[in-house]
C-alpha cells in the first residue's frame, strides 16, 4: 500500500491539521514509511481471533443519575483563549 498526495490532503483535512503544499511531500514520505511497518500485520492469519479492545474484560460501571459536579465555570474559563459573558467565543459560523 502506498498513500498519494490526495490521501495526505484528505487525512490532514479529517484531522483538522493544516498541511501546506511545501509540507505534503515530506509528510507523504514519512507516512508511507510508517505504513510500510504497519503492513507487516496483514501477513498474519487472525481468523477467529476475538479483537482485544482493552486489557481488562470488565463492563463499564454505572453510577446513580445524580448531580456530582459543582460549578467551576470561572476557573475553567480562566484558561480559555477567548470568553465573553460566560461563553466560549469562536469565529462566526452562522450568518
Amino acid at each position: 500500500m502506498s498513500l498519494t498526495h490526495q490521501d495526505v490532503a484528505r487525512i490532514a483535512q479529517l484531522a483538522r491539521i493544516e498541511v501546506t503544499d511545501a509540507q505534503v511531500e515530506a509528510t507523504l514520505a514519512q507516512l508511507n514509511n510508517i505504513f510500510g511497518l504497519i503492513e507487516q500485520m496483514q501477513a498474519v492469519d487472525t481468523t477467529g481471533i476475538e479483537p482485544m479492545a482493552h486489557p481488562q474484560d470488565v463492563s463499564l460501571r454505572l453510577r446513580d443519575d445524580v448531580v456530582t459536579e459543582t460549578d467551576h465555570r470561572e476557573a475553567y474559563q480562566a484558561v480559555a483563549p477567548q470568553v465573553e459573558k460566560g461563553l466560549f467565543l469562536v469565529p462566526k459560523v452562522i450568518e
Partner: protein
Amino acid sequence: MIEATLKELSVQLANKDVSAVELATAYLARIDALNPALNALVTLDRERTLAAAAAADARRAAGDAHALTGVPLVHKDIFCQQGWKTGCGSKMLDNFVSPYSAHVVERCDAAGMVTLGRANMDEFAMGSSNENSFHGAVKNPWDTAAIPGGSSGGSAAAVAARLAPVATGTDTGGSIRQPASHCGITGIKPTYGVVSRFGMVAYASSLDQGGPLAQTAEDCALMLNVMAGFDKRDSTSVERAAEDYTRELDKPLAGLKVGLPREYFAEGLAPDVARVIEGAVAELKAQGAEVVEVSLPNTQLSIPAYYVIAPAEASANLSRFDGVRYGYRAPEYKDLVEMYEKTRAQGFGEEVKRRIMVGTYVLSHGYYDAYYLKAQKIRRLIANDFKAAFERCDVILGPVAPTAAFNIGEKSGDPVQMYLSDIYTLSVNLAGLPGMSVPAGFADNGRPIGLQIIGNYFSEAKMLNVAHRFQCATDWHRRAPAL
C-alpha cells in the same frame, strides 16, 4: 542527604534529623546548579514548593504525618496539577495552568509530599528519546551526548541526577521502563488500571498507565502505595482492596521460576546488553531462582499493532485541542475550520501530528477493519502469548531496550527506526501487564542498562520482591553519574 533514597529520607524526617524545608531548599539549590545543563525540569515555583514544605513540617510537628510527608518529588508534566503550568511538553498547552489536580497528584499532596517542579517529557508522551519536547531535548546525566529515553525522560534524568529522590511518570509503550533503563534508575509500570488516569493528559487510553521512578525497588514500592488506588472518575480504574506493595520485598527467591523469552535474546539485541542481562539472571539463579525458557512468538508484531492502536486512540483523544476551551489558539484565521487547522498545525509538534494523521487514517471509513480491528486481534495474540508463558513461570526477565541510550539526534530524523527500538516494551502495554526496569550494569560505552521484569496481572509485589532481592546483592542502583 541529596544521595539519600526515599526510604532514608522518610526515616530522617521522622527522626527530625532534617526538616522538609531544609530538604526542599537543598534540592532546589541542586536543581539550580545542574538543571540548566540537563533540561530535566521545565517548571519551578520556589514559593509554592517552600510553602508545601513548611506545611509538611507543621504536619510532622502536629503528629499526623504519613511516612512520606515532607519528601520532595517531581511530577511528569503530563499530570494536571492545580496552580501549576501543565504543559505536557507541547506548545499547545504551554499557557495551561491547570484548574484541577490529577488523582495521582491529589494522592501525593494528601500524603504531604512536596512538589519541587515539573519534569520535561516528549510532547503528549509520544517519543522514545525526549527529543520531541517543546522545551527541547533532555540530556542523559551519565553522558550529555546521549538521550535519557522517553517519554518520561525528564523524570528519569531528574532522579538519576539526584535532583529529586522520586518522580512520577507514565508508560504507554515503555515510557517509564525505557528511560529508567537508560538513566540507571528503577521504575515500574503497574498493571493497567492500578493507577488512576484521571487528570493524566490522555495519549492512548487503553494503554496509558502511571507509575513511579526512583533509585530503588523499595522506593518504588513505597511510592506505588501512594499512587495506586481505585478512583471512580477513571472508568477503567480497577476496584480492588488497597495493597501494601512493600509486603513481599524481603521474601527469599528460592524456588522462584523466571522465564526467559527466547525472542528477547534473538537478533537485534546488542552484545553488551545481552551480557548485562545474562549477569543479572545469573545473580538471581545464585539466589535460588530457577530459569525456564518461554516463548512470546508474536513479539515482533507488537510494533505494527502498537503503532496502529496508539495513534488511533491518540487521534481521538487529541481532537479536544481545538483552540476553543483551553490551550493555544492561532493568532490569525478567517473562519472556524481555519482556526482549528492553524491552531493544531502550529500548536502540535511534528511527531504528534504524524501520529494523529496515522490514527485518523486507520480509523477512517473503509480502513477500520484492515488496520484497527486487525491490530486488536494481534493484541489478543500477544496477550495470549503471555498467558501461556505465565503458566510456566512467575516472572519474565529480559532487556528493556535493544541497546543502551543512543545519541541525541541519532534517530530523530527517522521515526520508524525510533519505533523499532520499542520492541521489548510495547507488548507489555498491549497485554496490560505490569513491567519494571532495574539497573543491572553498564554498556561498553559506560551508559547504564536496565533489566526488565515482567509480571502477571497484579503481581507488582512479587516483581518488587525480585527487584529488591537483586538490589540487596548488587550495587548498580547505587551508582550515580559524576556531575
